[in-house]
Structures are given as structure tokens and as C-alpha cells.
């Protein structure tokens, strides 16, 4: 049996009061090395759920166990070594070079001056290579295209050497070529025993690398497999409405005309 990384029991998330609850009574679990795809409509609470799992927002109720330990018991420094995060918020500092930005991933490992040791530099270079950023490493952040910048964010998270990577929409603003490159990279990370939870609106492409799907429907989270999604119209209805269906014979999604 594989090692359990994340165990969520009866979790409710939202902001402050009852009425702003976005997910209720969700129970999911993640094993090491899995790729979890988080699906849901705009405003269904994907980002809120992601921020809660990352410890940025306190859960309203329920249990959130990361590596068999309650998330509340983790301090920020420890957690940063085990969990890395990329959000939809694309803030960056224009004056930083790609390499300097990626170096922030080494923050939890460096001394008070932030000096980079041999190991830190190796990790930074490895993640730059993995994300195909070597040629861009001296470029300033504001000189990059959206796609390149998205890869830099991912590289920073990879340099953090965390067991769990949480990525909120790593495929937005990208063209198909860059989306597939990004997804292949995620797949490769999982093969290297890292675990990835990510959300995406490019569901048809993302489903191809996912081991597990969390589908948010009106405050509920369905934990299913990609095959469940292909085979069951109920799940497709939730995400796609009634005009877009998976065609079993054709093996692709088709618009009902």
C-alpha cells in the first residue's frame, strides 16, 4: 500500500461566517506520488479549497491531516519544506531575474542572510532545467511572456523540494503547446515521487495525466477517477452542463449540436 500523504475528513472551508461556506463536509485523501486534478466551475471554491489545504486559510470545521499530522500543528518553516504552492495571483517583482526568483524556493533551507549553498544552487539549476528555463535564467521577470512566467512560478515551487506541490491553474494564459509541456512536466514530477494537486479549466487535457479527480458540485466534493468522469454523465453534467459530452465511441468530448 502506498503512503498516505493527505487525509481530509468532513472538511468545511470558506471565509469566516456560515453563509460564506464554499465547501462542506468534504472527505478526500491523497497518496504519495498521485496527481490529483481539481475541477469545478468558476467560483465553485477551488482556490479557497487550495488555500485551505496550503494552510493559508483556516478550515471552518473538519480534519486536515498532512503526513499524519494535523495541519494546525505544522509551523510555517516546517511546512514550507514539505509543501510548495503556486497560486493564480501572478505577482512578481520586475527587478528580479528568473534565477533570483526561483532562488526564493530555497528560502526554507538557507541561513538568516539567505546565502545559497552548493546544494541550493544545484536544486535551483535542476528546476530551471526541468522547466526548460536555462536559456532565460538571466532575464528579468517583466521581460517574460505569460507562458514563460508560469513556468518560472512552477520552477520556484520545484526548487522548494517539497513532497506535495499545490498548483492553482498552472495552465491558464497558456497556448496548447505550453499547456501540454506544463502537464508533461507535472507527470514527470509525479514519477519522481512527488505528489501534485492542481486545478485546471483545460479538463480534457488535464484528465489525461490525472490519477484522481476532485469535482466540486455545489459545496460537495466528489472524489472520483478520470474513468468515472468519462463514463458517468452525471459528473460531466456538473462540470460541462448539458451540451458537452464524452463520446465513448470516438473517445473524445463532443458538443451536442
Amino acid at each position, binding site marked *: 500500500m502506498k503512503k498516505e500523504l493527505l487525509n481530509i475528513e468532513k472538511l468545511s472551508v470558506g471565509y469566516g461566517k456560515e453563509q460564506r461556506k464554499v465547501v462542506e463536509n468534504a472527505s478526500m485523501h491523497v497518496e504519495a506520488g498521485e496527481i490529483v486534478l481539481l475541477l469545478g466551475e468558476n467560483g465553485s471554491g477551488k482556490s479557497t479549497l487550495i*488555500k485551505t489545504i*496550503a*494552510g*493559508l486559510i483556516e478550515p471552518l470545521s473538519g480534519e486536515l491531516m498532512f503526513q499524519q499530522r494535523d495541519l494546525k500543528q505544522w509551523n*510555517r*518553516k516546517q*511546512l*514550507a*519544506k514539505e*509543501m*510548495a*504552492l503556486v*497560486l493564480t*495571483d501572478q*505577482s*512578481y*517583482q*520586475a*527587478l*528580479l531575474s528568473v534565477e533570483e526568483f526561483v532562488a*526564493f*524556493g530555497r*528560502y*526554507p533551507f*538557507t541561513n*538568516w*542572510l*539567505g546565502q545559497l549553498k552548493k546544494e541550493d544552487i544545484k536544486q535551483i539549476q535542476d528546476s530551471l532545467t526541468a522547466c526548460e528555463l536555462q536559456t532565460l535564467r538571466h532575464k528579468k521577470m*517583466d521581460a517574460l511572456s505569460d507562458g514563460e512566467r508560469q513556468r518560472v512560478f512552477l520552477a520556484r515551487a520545484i526548487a*522548494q523540494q517539497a513532497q506535495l506541490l499545490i498548483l492553482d491553474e498552472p495552465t491558464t494564459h497558456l497556448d496548447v503547446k505550453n499547456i501540454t509541456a506544463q502537464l508533461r512536466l507535472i507527470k514527470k514530477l509525479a514519477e519522481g515521487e512527488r505528489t501534485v494537486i492542481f486545478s485546471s479549466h483545460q479538463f480534457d487535457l488535464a484528465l489525461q495525466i490525472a490519477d484522481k479527480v476532485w469535482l466540486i458540485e455545489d459545496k460537495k466534493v466528489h472524489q472520483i477517477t478520470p474513468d468515472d468522469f468519462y463514463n458517468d454523465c452525471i459528473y460531466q453534467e456538473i462540470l460541462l452542463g448539458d451540451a458537452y459530452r464524452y463520446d465513448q465511441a470516438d473517445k473524445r468530448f463532443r458538443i451536442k449540436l
Partner: protein
Amino acid sequence: MMQRSIFFYALLVCLGLLFALNLGFGSASIGFGHSLKILLSGAGSETEQLIIFQSRLPKAITAILCGAALSVSGLLMQTLFRNPLAGPYILGISSGAGLGVAFLIMGATVLGVSVSTGISISVAAIIGAVGILLILLWVSLRLNDVMSLLILGVMIGAIATAIIGMLQYFSTDFELKAFLLWTMGSLEGLNYQEVSLVAGVCLLLILWAFVKSKPINAFLLGEDYAQSIGVSTLGLRITLILISGGLAGVITAFCGPIGFVGIVVPHLARMLLKTTNHLKLIPACMLIGASILLLSDLLSQIPGNGLLLPINSITSLIGIPIIIWIIFKKRKLSSGF
């Protein structure tokens, strides 16, 4: 790398030069060479010694402290709010100090006492500044959003200014002038005890900021990202408010409000060093800020006739053109955030 260290040496030389010029020139016409001789060898008459050691030297040191402290304070505020317009006074620290002083100078007649001596003004200003600082800390523990904090800070400052306005309306001509003089700022009149107090507090606070450079750098990624790489952002936010407010408060208490240095110098430092790393920006801000204040002080004394222009006006007159120049050169200031 090489360029940066040359740059630091150049700044140091520049600071030393301005320091010497400050000691050499003043309202009393002691020649520049002669002044330095008095300073280094203790030569000269008693009066000359008095002028150099009791007036010019403490004043020059005050200028250095003032420039360094306000610049670092402004840098931290710009980082905290990720806003190029932030400065040491953005959260109403100077209005708070002003309110304290206004109460002292103009409230005195209401109470029937006259207490506006130098040290009591400093104490009143400190009480005012610390009062505002405490309100801000209290708010920042409750509001999990720096932008709301920024708006609240500005509002609190506006309230203090409004109360000052009311006090002014009911005060006598004499009190009004005394208060107005305070708002113009002054580097003069501090004795060595006061200078060492200001120096101690400022250097400690700046050292604290320097030690915190690493989390401060991470803060510029945005609070969510900073947390995700291991920074306790609430703690850091409070630290930044304490350091920045403390620096601005102590300087305002002893020198009055001194404008624009705190906003301009961080931009200058970022532009010249092309970095956002606070390990380098903090020392650079100290050197540039101190130099600019020494220069302002030099310019404030009209040679020959003993007249002294208000330092607050001079720093604004120097600061504003610099900021306009940076805007035209860089097109936008926000690229540092």
C-alpha cells in the same frame, strides 16, 4: 557585483565629504581649513571650539541619523504596502507627533501653564507618535489586509491633522508661530545626550530591520507566497510597523517632520543598485539618506548672513525634483515591487 561595491565606496566618500563640509561651513565665519584643524587637533579659541563641538558636530550627526532613519523607515513602508508612494509618514506617525506637540504648545494656555521647552516638545511628540503606533498595531492584529491598514493609517493621520487645525484656530499668535516653527523641522539644538539617545534607538531599529532582510525580501513576493515559503507574515507585518514607526517617531520627536527624504531615497537606492534585496538596500538607503540630509543642511544655511532656511522645505525642494527625474527615467516607479 564589482560595480555594487564601488558604488558603496563612492557613497561613503560622498558622505565623508559632505560631513566635512558641514563642519566647515556655518553661520559663523570660521574658515573651512581652520574648522577642520579645530576638530582634529583641538586648536582655536574657546568660542570657535564651542561652535564646532557644541553646534556643528551634533548638528551634522543629527543630519546623518535623520537621513538614515527616515530613508530606512520609508523603504520598509514601501515594502510593507508594496506601494511606491509610501513613506515614513504614510501611517500618520508624524501627524500623531504633531498632535502631541500641538497639544503641548497650544493646549498650554487652556491649562494655564507654559511648558514648551525643547525636551518637553520631544516628549509630547513621542507620546503622540507612540499613540498612533499603538492604534496601528491594534488594527493590524485585527485586519488581515495591508491595504485596509494603509487606508486606516491615512485616515487616522487626517483626524490628527483635523484636531491640530482646531487647536490652531483657538491658539494665540505666539503659540501658532511656535508650532509652525516645529513643523518646519530643525536639526539644531540637540545636545550630546539627546544625540546619543536618537543614535542608539535608530541604530538598534535599523539593525533589527537588517537582520530581518531575508523575510522582508520574501514579503515582496506577496503575503500568500511569503507564507508558503515559510514566513510568518503577521509577525513580520508587526515588526515592520514597529521598526518603521519607531524610526519615524523618534526622528520627528527630536527634529520635527522632515519631508520627502523617506519617499525619495528608497527609489534612488533601488534605481542605482538595480536590486530589491534589502541586505543591500538598507545600507544604501542609510548612506544616500544621510548624504542628502547633510546636503540639505548645507543648502539651508545662506553663507555669510547667518540666516537659516527651514530644513523641511529644503528636503522637499531637493526630493521632489529627484522623484520627478526618476519617474521620467524609469517611466514607472512600481517596477520595484
